[in-house]
């Protein structure tokens, strides 16, 4: 059984009933790195937020189940759900500049979860935090834990967020475009670090990204999302050999090759967009009639 199994998940805007997620099926095995790709606005972040219980209040889930380690989160009472998510899952957010509280020191921001959710003693939690900061190659962890976020560089902060995500030894981490806000040289280091930490801790990773190049390097399987719908779920090997869906093929053709970055790129053709949009529309019709 998959560690994370999202089945038939649909969500919409509360006010206008505009669909945000359409009947999403998605599964991640224990210890697996699963890529979630798709254009901007496809709903990648919403899937991550739904499973971490942090959807904006303007969005409601209408159908489906989110099974984390065999338990349907949506059926748990809120307090129990919060505890469960806190103990088994974590988030590496996109923007290290806003992901740390500017008016609190780094130390407590890492140890909070260990103390609150796992009930550790503060001193044990602090020792653990120092160890983790060491593990993500941060020099002088003791000083860093006493610092405020603005005293540290973007790359440092992202390292801290990674350490913090791994702190409670979660079984699943959602990384929502963890390198987009960083400059290119730092991006590579951070990516390497995430892969390294994931391998060492054996954590399952749901890796949200625009970048198929990154997917080919760190993921074992992936889902392609369009308009809140999963159009293809496959292994990375099969995907790069021969994508099944026309939209996936077009997406792949639109990605620069590292071997030849200046080779002509084909943007996703209109006809392919039209076809996948028709699919989404057909899904909505069947939803209404069914």
């Amino acid at each position: 059984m998959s560690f994370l199994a999202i089945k038939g998940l649909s969500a919409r805007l509360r006010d206008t009933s505009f669909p945000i997620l359409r009947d999403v099926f998605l599964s991640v095995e224990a210890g697996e790195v699963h890529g979630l790709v798709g254009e901007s606005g496809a709903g990648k972040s919403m899937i991550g937020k739904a499973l971490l219980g942090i959807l904006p209040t303007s969005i409601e889930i209408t159908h489906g189940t989110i099974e984390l380690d065999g338990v349907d989160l949506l059926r748990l009472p809120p307090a129990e759900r919060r505890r469960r998510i806190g103990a088994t899952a974590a988030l590496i957010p996109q923007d290290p500049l806003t992901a740390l509280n500017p008016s609190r020191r780094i130390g407590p921001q890492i140890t909070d979860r260990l103390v609150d959710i796992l009930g550790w003693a503060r001193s044990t939690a602090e020792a653990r935090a120092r160890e983790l900061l060491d593990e993500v190659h941060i020099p002088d962890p003791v000083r860093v834990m006493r610092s405020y976020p603005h005293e540290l560089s973007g790359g440092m902060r992202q390292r801290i967020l990674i350490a913090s995500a791994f702190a409670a030894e979660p079984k699943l981490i959602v990384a929502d475009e963890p390198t987009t806000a960083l400059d290119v040289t730092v991006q590579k280091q951070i990516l390497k670090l995430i892969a390294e930490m994931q391998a060492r801790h054996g954590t399952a990773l749901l890796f949200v990204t625009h970048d198929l190049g990154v997917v080919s390097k760190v993921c074992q399987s992936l889902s392609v999302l369009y308009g809140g719908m999963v159009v293809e779920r496959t292994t990375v090997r099969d995907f790069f050999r021969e994508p099944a869906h026309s939209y996936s093929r077009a997406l792949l053709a639109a990605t620069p090759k590292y071997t030849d970055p200046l080779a002509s790129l084909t943007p996703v053709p209109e006809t392919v967009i039209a076809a996948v949009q028709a699919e989404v529309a057909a899904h909505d019709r069947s939803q209404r009639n069914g």
Partner: protein
Amino acid sequence: MADGRSQIRRRVGLKLWLSGGWIAFLVMAALCAPWLAPHDPLAQDLFLGRLPPAWVQGAEPGFYLGTDSLGRDVLSRILYGARLALIVALVAGSLTCLIGATLGLMAGFLRGWVDVVISRAIDIWMAFPPVLFSILLIAVMGPGLTSIILAIVVIDWTRFARVVRAEAMAQGAMDYVASAQVAGRRRISTMFTEILPNVLPTIVVLLTLEMGIAVIVEAILSFVNLSISTDDPTWGGMIAEGRTSIHQAWWVLVFPLVTLFLTVLSFSQLGEGLKDRFDPVLR
């Protein structure tokens, strides 16, 4: 870069020292009025009426800022007047802040029906003309310290609520709030440990501004004789009395007016200075 920062800090420091110094001086004056005041603020002596301040010709020794038309010592009355002004500033300011900021924080962060209820209340509240409202309130309750404080709280809580709500809303959209939620923190506890510290600088500025406003409101109400009994010296009351004899004895009007002005200015500057102190980036 380093130079620029230290420049900012130095000016912040001066502002904070000057305004804080004045407020501290007033607090001292209010607490120690019986020992500091050279005369009984209520003692009348018609033979000593309208004495000019010490450096003007015709002054009597011991009456540093002159006397009013009833012969009461202006300096002593200003010192005693600081008591009422500061009590009103402190009590009305903090009550308004506590109520307004709490409601604003809840509306801005919890959203949903809580926000709907509080926002509607703010809208409706702001449709009342505030001065009329306060005069009406005091007319019903009768003049007195409690009425003044209540009038200020009732009118001004919306100022806090609106600003704090907007700030809390902006902070609530930040990723660190999402992280705290994922880490299992309860919403109420997120509100206090994550959001509140980031809204605090704004609250401090509003609070000190509000204290200044409270001093003015008290003065205005004393001026129109709606404050506490006219026997106790109040700055507003002194200004009202001084107005009638401005041509014969300008000092009776000018000194309480300057004191009032400096106090309100200091409160607002104190807020600005403290805000910079609280700001983790400038600290």
